[in-house]
């Protein structure tokens, strides 16, 4: 067991795959000498050289498309989108090209591509450097969307994403990058994992993903001390979504809180809420609660940003309301 950070785990996963497989390469803005805006690829240029650590001009719409083209020819490209907000510039290539090629062209067309995007608020970067846009891509058949919340998952899921034969949007969170955990980085390949139960409890179900799972874990700890046992589920893979263990959990607890750092309307939390309503209506004994960002751009000002973002205190309050306590 060693202390590893979330960003080190992602780097380690990319490095391990690149060592083993010449088809894997990384491209993106300032990923070379600079090591990426958040330092995730630091040192990789020296290790693999400029042909495999491709430092690009500021042209998201086209270097994402080039990665798609290379993937169709058998490569397994990883693309870093410096801030998830910039993925807007590459949406055509992801939605109209990458997502549809296999469905339309069949087995001859495979697009094994990882789009790493640094999302999320909490760093006072303002409206265009703080968004979580993952729901857009969950609305696109053919794309996979994943969001690891732990260091161990960051490592395992990055490797799984690289070896997945589909385009995968890999949501990283700026506030998770520095977080260190004592963990074992498991060698070998595995498939992208579905939702996981992080903590078992019979009183209330909390479902979350990415950095919100970190906050939910803290909240669950506080609630534990107050005598409320949380069944805590981390989604990990947002799309395609497997709701099986959420249903199991809700059928047991009868109460569900969904925590998602995303605008409230038409997002992940709405989708889960709807599936529970459709499939577990008879089991819920309180309305499903959601903690999300409001439908408003993220402000740069610390006070306004904080006001918009769910945190452990808000989660604890919401659980109390849900429990009627």
């Amino acid at each position, binding site marked *: 067991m060693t202390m590893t950070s979330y960003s080190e785990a992602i780097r380690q996963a990319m490095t391990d795959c690149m060592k083993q497989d010449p088809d894997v390469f990384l491209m993106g803005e300032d990923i070379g000498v600079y090591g990426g805006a958040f330092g995730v690829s630091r040192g990789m240029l020296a290790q693999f050289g400029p042909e495999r650590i491709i430092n690009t001009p500021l042209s998201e719409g086209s270097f994402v498309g080039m990665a798609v083209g290379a993937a169709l*020819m058998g490569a397994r490209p990883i693309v870093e989108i410096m801030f998830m907000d910039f993925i807007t510039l590459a949406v055509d290539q992801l939605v109209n*090209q990458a997502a549809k090629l296999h469905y339309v062209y069949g087995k001859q067309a495979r697009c094994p591509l990882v789009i790493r995007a640094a999302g999320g608020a909490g760093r006072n970067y303002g409206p265009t450097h703080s968004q979580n846009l993952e729901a857009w891509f969950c609305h696109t058949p053919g794309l996979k969307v994943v969001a690891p919340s732990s260091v161990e998952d960051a490592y395992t899921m990055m490797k799984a994403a690289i070896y997945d034969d589909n385009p995968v949007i890999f949501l990283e969170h700026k506030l998770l990058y520095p977080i260190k955990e004592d963990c074992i980085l498991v060698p070998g390949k595995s498939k992208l994992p579905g939702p996981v139960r992080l903590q078992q409890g019979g009183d209330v179900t909390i479902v979350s993903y990415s950095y919100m799972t970190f906050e939910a874990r803290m909240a669950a700890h506080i609630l534990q001390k107050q005598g409320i046992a949380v069944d805590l589920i981390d989604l990990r893979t947002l799309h395609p979504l497997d709701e099986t263990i959420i249903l199991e959990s809700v059928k047991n607890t009868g109460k569900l809180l969904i925590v998602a750092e995303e605008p409230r309307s038409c997002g992940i939390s709405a989708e889960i809420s709807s599936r529970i309503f459709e499939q577990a209506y008879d089991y819920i004994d309180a309305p499903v609660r959601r903690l999300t960002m409001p439908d408003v751009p993220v402000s740069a000002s610390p006070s306004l940003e904080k006001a918009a973002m769910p945190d452990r205190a808000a989660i604890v309050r919401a659980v109390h309301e849900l429990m009627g306590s």
Partner: protein
Amino acid sequence: MNSKSDKLIDDYTTMLLIRCFEETVDELFTTGVVAGTVHTCVGQEAVAVGVASALQKTDVVTSNHRGHGHFIAKGGDIRRMMAEMFGKVDGYSGGRGGSQLMADYSLGFMGGNGIVGGSIPLAAGMALRFKQQKKFNVAACFIGDGSFNQGTFHETLNMAALWKLPVLFLCENNLYAMSTPVAEGNGNTDFAVRAASYGMPGVSIDGNDYFAVRDTVRGYAGLARSGEGPAFIEFKTYRFSGHSRGDQRLYRTREEENSWKRKGPLRRMKKYLVDNDIMTDADDREIKKAVRKKVQEAVKFSKTSPYPDKGTLLEGVYA
């Protein structure tokens, strides 16, 4: 007859096949036999066939919404192409793609595209892969004048030149982006000069001249193969047909159309072959008859092919 002459007759035959296929497709859509929309390339056959003739089998081609000619020239099976128009299970994409989205990777035809400019980075990415694997292949990217002002054009040409990728940007300038004349969409209609601003050669040639197309592409493909990087070639041509089904062509005159028809690629190619005793008028009639028969067989094949089973709707979203 020597093999060079045979090759010319083969290419002329392919040009005729494209013409006949496109005219037939146009009729099928116009008369409502086939639903949806289609973009035909009648009048632009010399570009498709000239380019394919200059490429090697292992080179790849990306196409656009007006791509039937590119596919036929690269060896596409017109029965499966026609069946795709009909939305039938024997179509190249099993009816999922329609006119714009067909591909046969085994032939190096990497597909059309429904988004103007969408294929430009894809082709450069394929070239990047060739370069990484140290293969002496090129990626040929067919685009139209309508794609000149998409961001992908600017971004990709810059990166292709920067990294000396073996990709050729092959632009069929047919003078209209749907209905908008090039002069109404571009501050400077001298397109070849744009290439210089990215640091790659750019040239403008007569796209209705099979020989000019073939020889120019062959030259730049050779340079790209040897590591000299990309090139931009503009082919001046004209689509005799409208943009798509239902286009009344109100934005141009019949006089203009007729003047282009007089310099059309097929009649020029035929004149060359007859004048040089490679083919007789009787040969020409025989070839045309055979081509028509082939296209009619493709229509018959498509009519009898079944629609895809509804039970397959959800299959293959993910690999």
